[in-house]
């Protein structure tokens, strides 16, 4: 099938990052003492790399559930902005005969990585664009579930001392920060984030810094709206 083969070609750039981050998150969960079934379930239903890594910390630190909910909402709030670009397209796919389920499935499997792939997707005339988008989202989801579960199972079998592997989460975020810093129109948002995080590291203590730091950043960014230049939101379709 043309659409399947074309979709497989599109996901090559993120194959390794999904495999590596998935393995790392599975390993982390195993190291914290959780069975592979939990890695499988969280990959299948949560399907958000940074959140699944933060989840391990939340599980082991005994944070109350309402804090887990609030932190997830804040950390994943960026997804709200991804969806905006694909409303019309995904809805059109869901309107095809017998494919209504694809609309919610595609909406819920749009991650940082798949969003970036779909944004730069160029499909030849003779191939069905909707099908390609669906297969890209499906294959990435399956790859993620497989690598998270594999990481957890391998962790059980490998007697190697993996202390320090948890640094891969920090490393992932540092790499993203560098990317954002280089492509940003203004460095003010990153500086505001850094200052708020450091301030609340001291004010609310290291473990409680995320929520107040994020709220502070949102407030400061809204107040400084006129002073921060941004290009118009890019439209991902050509």
């Amino acid at each position, binding site marked *: 099938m043309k659409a399947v083969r074309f979709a497989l070609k599109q996901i090559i750039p993120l194959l390794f990052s999904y495999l590596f981050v998935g393995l790392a998150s599975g390993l982390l969960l195993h190291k914290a003492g959780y069975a592979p079934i*939990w890695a499988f*379930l969280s990959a299948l*239903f949560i399907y958000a790399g*940074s*959140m699944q890594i*933060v*989840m391990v910390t939340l*599980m082991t630190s005994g944070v109350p559930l309402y804090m*887990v*909910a609030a932190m*997830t*909402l*804040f950390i*994943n*709030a*960026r*997804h*709200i*902005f991804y*969806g*905006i670009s694909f*409303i019309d397209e995904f*809805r059109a796919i869901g309107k095809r005969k017998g494919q209504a389920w694809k*609309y919610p499935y595609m*909406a819920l499997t749009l991650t940082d990585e798949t969003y970036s792939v779909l944004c730069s997707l160029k499909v030849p005339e003779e191939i069905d664009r909707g099908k390609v988008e669906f297969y890209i989202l499906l294959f990435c989801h399956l790859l993620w579930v497989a690598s998270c579960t594999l990481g957890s199972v391998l962790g059980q079998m490998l007697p190697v001392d993996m*202390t*320090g*592997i948890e*640094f*891969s*989460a*920090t*490393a*992932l*975020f*540092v*790499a*993203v*920060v*560098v*990317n*954002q810093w280089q492509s940003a129109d*203004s460095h003010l*948002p*990153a500086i*505001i*984030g850094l200052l*708020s*995080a450091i301030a609340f*590291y001291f004010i609310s203590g290291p473990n409680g*810094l*995320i929520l107040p*730091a*994020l709220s502070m*950043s*949102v407030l400061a*960014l809204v107040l400084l709206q006129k002073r921060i230049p*941004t*290009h118009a*939101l890019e439209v991902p379709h050509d």
Partner: protein
Amino acid sequence: MTDTLQTAAIIGIIALMTWITRGLPYLLFARKSPPPVIEYLGKVLPSAIMIILVVYCLRNTAFTVTPYGAAELLSVLVVAGMQLWRKNSLLSIFTGTACYMILIRTAFPM
């Protein structure tokens, strides 16, 4: 059993909240376009969020006693340097993590 329930509850809550953030635009803006302030936050908020996450990841580092978080800080510099130099996230994450795992076993044992 309570452990199982607790774990299932945490995964369930995180999944539900993630679905809400992913599904919200389809529910909110299906008919009208989002207000400018939302589009603006969509552009600028990710940069603030990611650097807060970096600080959060480093929160348990012992900065006040020797070696003053040297393993963490050096490894962060390695990741940033690799990312600036080769622009390959996978390579930067791999090198930085390997660097950290080696440093805490050799130069700065915990």
